[in-house]
């Protein structure tokens, strides 16, 4: 190991470790602050001065419709602005002493100049966090961020002919794609079919109108389902006769996506279809358990709601850390990558992004563990 990499080593795994000078300094100072990182001291002064983990500050909360709002966030050190339009970002919000994690599509166009990103959130009837985001977060709030990811993204360069099929808040990832192409001044042949209950529920309605006026290559079909009924896929031939030739991106309620998938399958053109499932998965607290996937080992097992995840992992042959097996030692803690688990002692529900004690937790529906 050379001197430089030796100095950098302790900071090698932190976010934003791509800038080598900053990293050299951070690495050197880490020798003095060990076992902490210099960031642990710096963020006492300014919460954004930490690359140990991505953070951001909400700079503006802009209402879009009655039940949705756009949050404009200024990310702190280490955020990679080179994300792809259509990708989503994990966001952690501190409410009543706990951090809650959710993922939302980025609606901003990847743009390094003004160093801002935005997400647009629709308040879900039972979604405690989404309601909080739409109605309760003040500008200035610090949030944690997870790096943008997702395959539902605009390729580079974009295909010549595209079709967007969206409904409700499913428009958000597509919005980022449209904005990106608009900003580049190069918007290919795009047909966008979007459904929302009424005129007032259409997110970005004005902007869609403006884009359409400015780009003759963009055609928007907005469907108001309360008056006009659901958009029938069968009528796609009228709206967009050449849909079979287009690369299609679809995002919306699960039922709609299933229908679309079936239809593309029938036509044998699934390779031209890109789906984003915003499964608002809810914990299954019926005690029926679910399918547990162990991400690292790739093992999968079906369990009931009384089997602990530790037992499940051992049965499936995944490598599970454990100690006391009675919930006191924390040896068995692993992150819940997706789905829900329930604490068998208290009945408390754990959601994606939390780290759970596998020896006293059971699956509440399908879930994936990082083990």
């Amino acid at each position: 190991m050379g001197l430089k990499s030796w100095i950098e080593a302790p900071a090698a795994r932190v976010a934003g470790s791509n800038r080598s000078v900053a990293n050299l300094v951070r690495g050197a100072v880490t020798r003095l602050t060990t076992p902490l990182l210099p960031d642990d001291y710096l963020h006492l002064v300014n919460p954004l001065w930490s690359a140990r983990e991505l953070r951001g500050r909400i700079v503006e909360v802009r209402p879009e419709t009655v039940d949705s709002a756009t949050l404009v966030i200024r990310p702190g050190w280490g955020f990679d602005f080179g994300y792809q339009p259509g990708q989503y970002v994990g966001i952690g919000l501190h409410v009543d002493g706990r951090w809650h994690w959710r993922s939302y599509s980025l609606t901003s166009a990847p743009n390094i100049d003004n160093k801002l990103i935005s997400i647009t959130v629709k308040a879900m009837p039972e979604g405690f966090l989404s309601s909080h985001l739409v109605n309760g977060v003040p500008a200035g709030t610090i949030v944690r961020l997870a790096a943008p990811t997702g395959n539902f993204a605009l390729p580079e360069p974009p295909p010549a002919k595209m079709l967007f099929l969206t409904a409700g808040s499913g428009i958000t990832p597509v919005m980022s794609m449209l904005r990106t192409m608009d900003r580049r001044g190069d918007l290919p042949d795009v047909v966008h079919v979007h459904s929302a209950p009424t005129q007032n529920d259409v997110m970005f309605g004005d902007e869609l109108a403006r884009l359409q006026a400015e780009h003759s290559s963009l055609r928007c079909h907005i469907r108001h389902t309360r008056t006009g009924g659901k958009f029938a896929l069968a009528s796609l031939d009228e709206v967009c006769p050449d849909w079979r030739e287009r690369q299609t991106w679809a995002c919306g309620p699960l039922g709609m996506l299933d229908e679309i998938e079936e239809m593309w399958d029938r036509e044998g053109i699934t390779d031209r279809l890109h789906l984003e499932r915003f499964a608002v998965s809810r914990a299954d607290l019926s005690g029926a358990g679910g399918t547990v996937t162990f991400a690292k080992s790739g093992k999968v097992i079906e369990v009931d709601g009384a089997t602990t995840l530790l037992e499940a992992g051992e049965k499936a042959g995944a490598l599970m850390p454990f100690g006391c097996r009675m919930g006191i030692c924390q040896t068995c803690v692993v992150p819940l990558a997706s789905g829900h688990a329930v604490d068998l002692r208290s009945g408390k529900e754990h959601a994606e992004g939390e780290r759970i004690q596998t020896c006293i937790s059971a699956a509440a529906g399908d879930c994936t563990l990082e083990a």
Partner: protein
Amino acid sequence: MAITNITEFAHLTDSDIEALGRELDAIRRDVEESRGLRDARYIRRTIRLQRSLELAGRLVLFGSRRRPAWIAGTVLLSFAKCIENMELGHNVMHGQWDWMNDPEIHSTTWEWDQTGPSEHWKRAHNYSHHTYTNIVGMDDDVGFGILRMTRDEKWRPINLLQPIANVILAAAFEWGIALHDLEAQLRLEGDDRQRWNSKPKKEFAVKIARQVGKDFVLFPLLTGPAWKHTLAANATANLARNLWTYAVIFCGHFPDGAEKFTVDQFENETRAQWYLRQMLGSANIDAGPVMAFMTGNLCYQIEHHLFPDLPSNRYAEIAVRVRSLCEKYDLPYTTGPLSRQYLLALRTVHKLALPDKLLLRTADDAPETSSERKFAGTGAKIAEALRIDTDTGRRRGLLSALRDHKAARSRRLMRQS
């Protein structure tokens, strides 16, 4: 021999113990449900305070050639290190703050300012010590493999050196802990002792290099001409932290009244009996809020052993409830001022340096170790002991039995003399 049958020792029936277990579960639930913003604020403020103290200490030590600066810097750094060790490191790694779902204040990511790697410590402490609390032969924290702290352990000539070993352990406590944890880790991984480059050993070496490098090389170098003074200040702060943590740990585990148990007891134990073992096996220190904070709230060792993963700032209120449960079930609640608890522990260290021949009491009836058999002569059997006192209307259990036993014993001694 240490306690083989906790039900009999505690003068409780099985259903009493189950009922006690349910009451303790209720306490856990209440605290879990009420965790919130106030608690999160507490830990974040503590972190902020600790880091500010450390930073201030390091800065002041740049002037460590001047005596007042040396003293101030050393004191600041010592406080920072004590808080870091107890209220932060120990408690965070117990998972007390995992409920906040904050990746930076989490048992899986925290690394502490000590020579032993967190990972090793968590194994030895959270798992071995907290699961097998005070079971002779299973909990290595009983004497840390160096001191003989119970008559259940056979006396060996080396124990004669125990008073000296104790002083060394106190001064180098972090090293004692680190080696003890490494040993546990090696045993766990079935490590070949001859191999010098196994994973645990490498982790240990890296951690030592970082810790020693920081306190004894880099910071002194940085202060230039004051390097000798800074070095001395850092060493002093580490020493102060070692002595303090040693004292708190010893006061929580080794005063008279902190009972030891046998493997027999452990093997057939129910969850409720596990609780009872934690209650009878630990001891508290009487402390005000400031002192409680400096011990990382481990002055509430009993509460900590009952609920190792509940937030430390709640132990004070939990203690009120646990104490009243002890009263209700007539169980002892072992507590006392720091000085007394420490002197009791110290007495055991020195007494047990001697072979059993020279000691008066037996392993069944000694101040530091007793068993259900101690009541054979003087105490009542469970069935009798469960009677309700006709005068006070109160249950007569272990506490009363201990009192009776003591009185009977002194009567006997008087008669003999």
